[in-house]
């Protein structure tokens, strides 16, 4: 009997367990998945929780429901990966040997990376919305907040779901309008990048949204510290931005397990072949989703496309065949723009998001890079798709793992 071990039962790990259980011969392969946490969160919902659009119940379920019965599910903390010995060590000291290892340990916020962020004002006037706890604490704060300077801030790239902070700013605009207090709130979007959107085409096409919503922008802001006593963030060029309520996206880092095992880069991400998803250092170790160092977005859609390709590559690896260099960095993201509208963007390593229709060329029904209500319905419907199709490894019809250029007004980037 051979062992395939998956580390992490989040979006990527759960998808891989579901894909592989039907593809690997049960008599030859035992699949094991390890995760210390019992709850599976619908992470895109963390964006909506602070604004009372989703309830806490809508964003979490018992993770066990999504792990196939034939898969051995170990709920325990992982102490160490020993790649030279093809073994992982659990917190209890138990060894789990593997023939193939899939690392799907994701990315986490690390507010302690920035001086003053994780201090006495954490969850008082400084919040994140990338964790369940943060989003919930922020919801409670917003319910009673009387207004003032709201600063929506990104600490450093890369971050999970890079458009989420902007969506947060858009939804905040809508939220305060509906509460009849938009005039009491000053919204500023602060980013280390040169613009609110990171891709030049999208920036050009979408800048009007910021102006339309009266959201101020501070760009190229590389944060040095939070002065929580005087309520301001300060960058290395001594630029200061004052806040009453700071909603920040702290530095994102891969799991500490990767660092302990000596397998990560500066940010604990696993160096991974960007086309095959095989780790660069060990042939029988693969990485997927937010845990990799791929120059692609850290997002569920990316993990979903990777999972289809990684499944094929694992089967090839077992047969001793050459791996397919197929992953193209495909991402497909809805961007909430507030007031019941959303945008959709579809892009990869080499193609920027452009205008067009999706998934049917010329038909849609979804519009690329344009605000519409249909796009918003798509985003809302996606929660159902996530729980019922995506993490169960069911192929989403008409959406291919590699990006399609059909129905798009294209321009190639270098």
């Amino acid at each position: 009997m051979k062992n395939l071990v998956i580390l992490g039962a989040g979006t990527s790990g759960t998808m891989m367990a579901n894909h592989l259980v039907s593809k690997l011969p049960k008599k030859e392969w035992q699949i094991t998945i390890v995760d210390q946490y019992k709850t599976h969160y619908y992470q895109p919902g963390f964006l909506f929780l602070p604004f009372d659009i989703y309830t806490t119940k809508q964003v979490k379920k018992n993770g066990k429901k999504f792990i196939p019965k034939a898969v051995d599910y170990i709920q325990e903390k992982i102490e160490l990966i020993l790649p030279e010995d093809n073994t992982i060590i659990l917190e209890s000291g138990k060894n789990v040997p593997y023939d193939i290892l899939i690392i799907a340990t994701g990315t986490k916020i690390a507010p302690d990376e920035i001086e003053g962020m994780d201090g006495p004002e954490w969850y008082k006037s400084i919040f994140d919305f990338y964790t369940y706890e943060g989003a919930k604490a922020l919801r409670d704060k917003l319910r009673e907040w009387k207004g003032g300077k709201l600063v929506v801030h990104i600490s450093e790239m890369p971050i999970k779901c890079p458009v989420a902070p902007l969506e947060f700013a858009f939804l905040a605009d809508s939220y305060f309008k509906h509460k009849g207090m938009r005039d009491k709130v000053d919204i500023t979007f602060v980013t280390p990048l040169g613009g609110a959107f990171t891709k030049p085409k999208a920036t050009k096409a979408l800048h009007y949204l910021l102006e339309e919503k009266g959201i101020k922008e501070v760009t190229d802001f590389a944060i040095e510290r939070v002065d929580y006593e005087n309520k301001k963030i300060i960058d290395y060029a001594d630029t200061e931005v004052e806040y009453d309520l700071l909603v920040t996206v702290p530095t994102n880092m891969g799991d500490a397990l990767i660092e302990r095992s000596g397998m990560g880069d500066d940010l604990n991400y696993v160096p991974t072949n960007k086309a095959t998803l095989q780790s660069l250092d060990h042939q029988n170790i693969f990485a997927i989703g937010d845990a990799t160092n791929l120059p692609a977005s850290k997002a569920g859609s990316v993990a979903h496309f990777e999972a289809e390709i990684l499944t094929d590559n694992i089967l090839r690896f077992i047969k001793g065949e050459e791996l397919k260099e197929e992953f193209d960095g495909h991402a497909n993201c809805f961007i909430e723009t507030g007031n019941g509208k959303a945008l959709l963007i579809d892009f990869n390593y080499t193609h920027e998001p452009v205008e067009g229709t999706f998934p049917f060329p010329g038909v849609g029904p979804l519009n690329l890079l344009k605000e519409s209500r249909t796009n918003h319905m798509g985003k809302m419907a996606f929660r159902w798709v996530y729980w019922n199709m995506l993490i169960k490894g069911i192929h989403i019809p008409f959406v291919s793992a590699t990006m399609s250029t059909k129905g798009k007004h294209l321009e190639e980037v270098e």
Partner: protein
Amino acid sequence: MRKIISQTEIEVNEEGYLTNFSQWTEEICECIADEQGICMTERHWEVIKYIQEKHNNDEPLSIRGIKKSGVIDIKEFYSLFPGGPLKKATMIAGIPKPKSCI
């Protein structure tokens, strides 16, 4: 796009970044720096050499990477290349602007 700098014709993209590193010389480097309002000193050269080396090794450039470089701290990096230090330093070094994903 073509651009004449230091009496030499070079290929640049629309933002002014060299598209062909083989055209980079120390004279061109100084002229680009000058256009950015920067007068090259020994320290500037050390940083430029460091980021060129990182680029040649296919290692991504980031503010965090600079912090750990041992060559320069971030405060000094900002004072040497005021404004957007990574954007300016890469332009002067003749390498592409650091990419970040959406």
